[in-house]
């Protein structure tokens, strides 16, 4: 009985607190508008996501310093879903129903996005998702500011097939065992086959999350590579497994001039803990590199360095690094601001309509455009080689921005799908 009493007391006080919060936010709504930040600040994904939370906070500070959005200050609400996929959904619901945020910036792994998607659709709220992903999804409530497969994976493989990339003929598809690498490799296998590569020349390998011992994998790659023709490795290894992978690669002397490794989830931040001298020449494909020379990028990196120093952000205060998902986050929040100002409203439907065709001078030096229909950005693709100092040297780039194809033509049945959320919803 006693326990029930405590529960009652708790729920009552929670209710009072909620009323208090509600009224205070009602009162505050005159001057501020809340935005949600849904990134893991603890657990396995904290390594990658923490910095995205700081990027949103930096952009908010910047926007508020210039008078906010339509005269209203932005008020960030930070929650920590702790790399726990079901918790992402709970926290999303809390942000939308309790905090009444106008928009949410968040998620990294595809599994976390899949977890929150029904919540955003049910409560009709907006999510900006800033990370490259496998495609095969489209939602009227989500804006994807990261790359679709045709804006990262396919161009990277095409580059490795070209003369400058080493004319690779044999392929190792190596990844962490979950939805993003499996889907990407499915697309890549179909793409390679369309280019005349046989199954015998493709090796697919997966490792569990957090795998730390890559000795046998590297030995397998070496053996596969010695069996004839030029070999390249496509790595979709995610998270901090990359550190032991690249350390082993360097120590075992597998050089980029012999067997190049191109990675889709390795950026400046992931290489922070690695001695990159033996890795010079291995590649990564992204839509942004910190080393890109452009006025917009100089401004962005400088701002980040100053912000990291002022806020004492661990690691970044001594060695500030920017990366592709940070850039995508930054583009996302500014495009949302522009859309709100165009719509003259925070209403989801009006902002969604105003998002179509928004442009923004991205730190990558390209003018990024939000597609008129499919909720994905038009982005330029860059391929960089690792330098001795852990930065990337851009060796190839597309002439201009590339339109995203969320439904890859290399997956059977996709030709019947339309990349327009409204029409897709009608089909459902």
């Amino acid at each position, binding site marked *: 009985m006693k326990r029930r009493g405590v529960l009652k007391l708790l729920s009552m006080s929670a209710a009072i607190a909620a009323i208090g919060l509600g009224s205070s936010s009602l009162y505050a709504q005159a001057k501020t508008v809340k935005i949600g930040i849904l990134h893991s*600040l*603890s*657990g*396995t994904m*904290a*390594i990658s996501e*923490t*910095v995205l939370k700081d990027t949103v906070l930096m952009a908010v500070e910047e926007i508020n310093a210039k008078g906010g959005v339509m005269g209203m200050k932005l008020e960030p609400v930070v929650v920590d879903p702790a790399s726990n996929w079901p918790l992402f959904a709970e926290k999303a619901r809390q942000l939308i129903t309790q905090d009444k945020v106008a928009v949410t910036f968040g998620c990294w792994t595809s599994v976390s996005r899949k977890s929150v998607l029904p919540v955003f659709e049910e409560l009709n709220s907006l999510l900006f998702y800033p990370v490259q992903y496998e495609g095969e999804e489209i939602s009227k409530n989500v804006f994807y500011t990261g790359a679709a497969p045709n804006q990262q994976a396919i161009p990277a493989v095409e580059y490795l097939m*070209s*003369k*400058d*990339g*080493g004319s690779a003929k044999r392929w190792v598809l190596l990844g962490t*065992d979950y939805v993003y690498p499996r889907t990407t490799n499915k697309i890549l296998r179909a793409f390679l086959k369309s280019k005349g590569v046989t199954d015998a020349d493709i090796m697919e*390998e*997966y*490792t*569990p999350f957090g795998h*730390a*011992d890559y*000795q*046998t*994998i590297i*030995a397998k790659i*070496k*053996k596969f590579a*010695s*069996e*004839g023709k030029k070999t390249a490795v496509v790595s979709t290894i995610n998270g*901090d497994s990359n*550190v*032991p992978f690249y*350390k*082993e690669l*360097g*120590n*075992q*002397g597998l050089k*980029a*001039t*012999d067997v190049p490794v191109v990675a889709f989830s390795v950026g400046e*931040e992931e290489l*922070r*803990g*690695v*001695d990159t*001298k*033996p890795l*010079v*020449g291995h*590649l990564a494909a992204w839509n942004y590199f910190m080393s890109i020379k452009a006025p917009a990028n100089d401004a962005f990196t400088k701002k980040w360095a100053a912000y990291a120093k002022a806020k004492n*952000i*661990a*690691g970044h205060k001594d060695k500030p690094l920017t990366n592709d998902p940070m850039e995508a986050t930054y583009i996302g929040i500014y495009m949302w601001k522009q859309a709100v100002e165009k719509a003259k409203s925070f209403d989801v439907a009006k902002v969604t309509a105003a998002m179509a065709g928004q442009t923004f001078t991205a730190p990558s030096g390209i003018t990024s455009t939000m597609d008129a229909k499919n909720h994905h950005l038009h982005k330029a693709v860059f391929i960089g*080689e690792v330098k001795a100092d852990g930065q990337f*040297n*851009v*060796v*190839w*780039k597309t002439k201009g921005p590339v339109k995203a194809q969320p439904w890859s033509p290399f997956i059977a049945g996709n030709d019947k799908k339309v990349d327009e959320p409204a029409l897709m919803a009608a089909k459902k």
Partner: protein
Amino acid sequence: MRGGAAPPAAPFHMRLIFLLCVLVASPAYALDREAVAKLAFGDNDQKIEAISALVAEGDPQALAVLARFAEGEVEVDGKKVEVVINNRLRGAAGDALAGLRLLAPERALRAAAAKELATGADASMLPLVKKALEKETDADIRPLLELVAASMQMKSGDKAQRLAAIGMLGESTSPNSKTLLAEAARDADEEIRAEAQKSLRAVEGRLAWGEHLGLLFAGVSLGSILLLAALGLAITYGLLGVINMAHGELIMIGAYTTYVVQVFFRHTGFFDWYLLAAVPASFVVAAAVGMILERVVIRWLYGRPLETLLATWGISLMLIQLVRTLFGAQNVQVENPAFMSGGIQVLSNVVLPWSRVMIIVFAGLVLSGMWLLLTRTRLGLFVRGVTQNRAMASCVGVPTARVDTWAFGLGSGIAGLAGCALSQLGNVGPDLGQGYIVDSFLVVVFGGVGQLAGTVYAALTLGFANKFLEAWSGAVLAKIALLVFIIVFIQRRPQGLFALKGRSAEA
């Protein structure tokens, strides 16, 4: 143009000056200058041509020019031009440099150059290699060069030459020979095909040895890591009976201590020796944390395994958050000292990384140190006494509470050492310990609780089993298969590999 970002265009006046220079330069250097200009301003195909031209000329100056080119810089008339170097250009420049260095007076340079070329080089360098062969007298370098020449002749049109080359490659142990022979084994000419297949079988047979050796080493290496991670737990869980869920975090503390020591050493001239200080430091820090834990929390919970489990689990979360607050959620960078980078080449296709070799040695040292401590010292005697019969030990005057603290400190300290070793291989982050706690318990339970020898055998067995399964079925299935195997094993034999015998076993 698809490949490479366009090189920075030179201002017009620079081109003009450059043109004038070309005109007035002495004819002996004419080619050189043209090639250098191509290196700076040409597209990637032209750059490759220029590299070949420079090599063909054999100008000693070409060495310096190419070395700087490989670093992304070309000097044209005293002005530095930055060029974008990709793998293709880097490979070509590297081979060219190696080719030029074949004629160097220093033996070490020649050996390194020959080794570089043996991993595969363009056939256009054949004349250079032949020239070097005429002069080379060193018994170690000569066979390498002959191999290089043979692999280049594989592409020649002359059948007799190709057959000779195939025979030559058949005697080598290089993976590159295998690649070339595999290609020749599909040749249109029947005689060549038969010869190549024969040679290929010979090379593959020799390479297979290397693969087995590599696998064996991988097993020992993983075993040594598991052993280090589990040794501390073998004391705290095995001897004291404390289910310490914070064991992984003690490993993590050891790794962070290594990081802090490394940061201190970065500003001194002795960076390469930081590990000498980090090893004792990580032991002391982790041991101190462990002893504090024991004094403050765990000693009140002896004999209550469930509460201990929950309490230590809570402590582990607190320690993770503490480290996250102090050092940030991001992984920290622990650089290997120079002597730990790279590896030793034992066979043509087997490289044993120094870091792993060192950790195997280190695990051996820690193990023998602990064995000496437990069997040869007074503390060891007390620990064993308390483990076997606490009441009796107390009766004869052993301060059991203090022994508990010391023993827990020892176990924690060894966890710290494990952290120091792990920092050389993988990630150092707040979650480091989480990945090892399950493995550590597996090793200790599999080996038999309370048995040091069991822990050693279990660690090595699991290491081998994991690596052999991985090579055979892939990493994901290997992990699952291993867990299933241990579940079945523990059901059949709950006491583990080695069981305690005698009365203390029931205690």
